């Protein structure tokens, strides 16, 4: 299975779609598949797919236009902010892990510069 079965699946699919939005794989203003098509595409329960849409909407990343469907927001600034916050979160996790391993700040920086 492509998901971690111990964590809520809606969260994992939401992360996938969020990543697609910030990288531009899903363009601003692009229409998303309907809930049922999304369920088939991601191989998830339709109720889980609906939850993903509700959460994406609550997070302000998509908007539902009555009768026509759900679209990625067009607000490039909002998408940019989201990208920054996701990158910050990833950096924090990385730093935390490195410190767990006992690396100093200088060692982390050196590692990053030599690592491809």
């Amino acid at each position, binding site marked *: 299975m492509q998901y971690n079965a*111990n964590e*809520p*699946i809606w969260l994992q699919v939401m992360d996938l779609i969020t990543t697609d939005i910030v990288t531009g794989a899903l363009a601003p203003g692009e229409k998303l598949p309907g809930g049922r098509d999304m*369920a088939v595409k991601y191989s*998830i*329960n339709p109720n*889980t797919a609906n939850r993903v849409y509700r959460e994406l909407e609550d997070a302000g990343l998509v908007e539902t236009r009555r009768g026509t469907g759900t679209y990625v927001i067009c607000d490039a600034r909002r998408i940019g902010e989201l990208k920054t916050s996701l990158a910050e979160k990833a950096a924090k996790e990385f730093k935390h892990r490195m410190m767990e391993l006992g690396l100093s700040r200088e060692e982390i920086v050196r590692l990053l510069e030599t690592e491809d």
Partner: protein
Amino acid sequence: MLESKQVTKAFGSKIAVDHVDLKLEAGHIYALLGPNGSGKTTWMKMAAGLIKPTGGSVEFNGRPVDIDSRRYVAYMSTEPYFYSWMTVKSVGKYYQDFFADFSYERYLALLGKLRLNEEMKTRSLSSGMMAKLKIGVTLARDAKVYMLDEPFNGIDLLARDEIRACILESAKEDKLLLLSSHLVEEMEAIADRAVFISEGRLIENVDLEQLRSERGLSMADRYRQIYAQAEVDEK
């Protein structure tokens, strides 16, 4: 939509299903889980109106299931059920004669997805193809309840994706799906609820996303907890 009230089934002195109270609602895909001989198939056959309970009743929309409710309930059993002379096409025609809600158009679409074609003879189908054909004819009906007993058995890894897609396409708000399988992992993401039974008794009927968010457990984890405990109790 489907309600089991104190349903019991005994075969002689052996009790296969033991006072099961269970309410299943439309708009969900349930995974029905339990070790071999726990009563899953017997319960489904009673819900499909194929065998009668010894005690209690299964109701479909408030009425006990009978011959009439078979119009609304599509059941796929584990037993093979086509004549060897049949082609994939004649299997479809046969179903069309039997069930008013069978759509030949939908059947063709399903065959395409499952990579079967109309001209194939059932005699020459591999066990995996036969399993897919059973799923195709069952889902080509526009029923209210679909019960699939072991839909992933004998099906290779890649074809399981096709089956999952067909199942998900059939899931709608006014329909109820119940899947019984030993391949628990195959159902983790497509089911939203799990019904665990053991030795004919209902253990629990849980929301899977809640199980994950509140207890950090997958369906497979919960399965191991329940049945490992049952084994300990037995000793």
